[in-house]
């Protein structure tokens, strides 16, 4: 039970950590000042949520490991985030597409997590969802703006959605830890979110004059720690300071 709760929290937190790191990469590199600030603001929200989760996870471990150890010093195979969030910033359409496809899920997930019997997780969800509502507005807005924009922006937004679609199904896969947490009334049954998710996504895509991809084959593995080649590079940058200067603090 304790081990599965720990894994369950990591699954939630790792998604936000890795996505936050991807958005943070845009700091000083956004396509315009406003979007640059927006992306790094999203990143900051996600890191804040992650800290609450890792602090809780460290408490569950009950040894001398801290939130920083959990965030910074695990190996690639120990990260349990979905493949979607680790996909690289190929262009702004990919940044927005990835954010949008995750935000729709994130919002549905946190809505349910607020009802968790675990009061810490419920409190984190209750706090996070207010921020994620803004994220969802921001990313949906940009999907529409780019999709229903110029010929060029439309084509690139469509390409990003098509390219990322293969990673969406994994959001609704259950691990053993998930199943136990659902049975305990702590976790969210993600399989039940799937239909609403694809309906909501399709709604925005249609409004954005984009096609909903008709893909039948999906990628998976992130929840088991088997990642795409992109995660290693991301972690190399994320962990560099702690590896080079162990126990360094701000």
């Amino acid at each position, binding site marked *: 039970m304790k081990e599965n709760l720990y894994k369950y929290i990591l699954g939630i937190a790792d998604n936000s950590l890795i996505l936050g790191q991807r958005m943070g990469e845009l700091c000083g590199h956004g396509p315009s000042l406003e979007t640059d600030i927006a992306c790094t603001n999203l990143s900051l*929200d996600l890191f804040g949520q992650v800290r609450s989760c890792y602090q809780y996870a460290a408490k569950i471990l009950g040894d001398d490991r801290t939130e920083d150890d959990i965030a910074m010093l695990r190996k690639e195979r120990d990260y349990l985030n979905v493949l979607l969030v680790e996909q690289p910033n190929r262009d702004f359409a990919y940044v927005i597409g990835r954010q949008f496809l995750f935000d729709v899920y994130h919002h549905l997930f946190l809505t349910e997590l607020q009802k968790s019997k675990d009061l810490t997780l419920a409190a984190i969800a209750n706090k996070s969802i207010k921020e994620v509502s803004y994220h969802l507005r921001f990313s949906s807005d940009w999907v529409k703006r780019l999709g229903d924009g110029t010929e060029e922006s439309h084509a690139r937004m469509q390409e990003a959605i098509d390219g990322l679609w293969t990673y969406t199904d994994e959001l609704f896969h259950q691990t053993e830890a998930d199943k136990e947490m659902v049975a305990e009334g702590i976790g969210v049954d993600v399989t039940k979110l799937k239909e609403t998710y694809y309906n909501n996504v399709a709604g925005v895509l249609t409004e954005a004059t984009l096609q909903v991809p008709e893909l039948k084959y999906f990628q998976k593995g992130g929840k088991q720690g088997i990642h795409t080649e992109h995660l290693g590079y991301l972690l190399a940058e994320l962990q560099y300071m702690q590896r080079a200067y162990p126990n360094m603090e701000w």
Partner: protein
Amino acid sequence: MVTEKQHIDEALIPILEQVSDPEIPVLSIMDMGVVRSASIKQGIVYVEITPTYSGCPAMDVIGDDIISAMSQAGYKTEVELILHPAWTTDWITPKGREALEKYGIAAPLDAEADKSVLLEGKQLVKCPQCGSKNTKMVSQFGSTACKAQFQCEDCQEPFDYFKCLK
């Protein structure tokens, strides 16, 4: 606005009022509504604060500032960060809202109006410089996570709008 869950020892209020939000220095943490409880037990002051946004980098500084203000008043202090109940912009006091406006930040509207401003581009946010409502949103995200960027179409000044969080 004082909510049921807020228990603050009267004697500690003047001390807490000296501590300001590092990102909005005109606002005390009391006016911000981030202090959820403060009490003295056996000579030690216990303070609970709650973050405005999860990633708010000001929280660590606020914690340190509380400890330092309390120690000047002769108290040893422990500060704890709590997440529940989650902070809402409704907890900013009327005095705090006034201070925000004077400082050049438009105070948060209610949730309904906030939505129509940020999503439908309705002109309801008043420019803190000239008072005109002929304003437009430049970006949903501003200088900090809690604000959006606006511009006044009359006096042309850019300004921050404190987003409603509920």
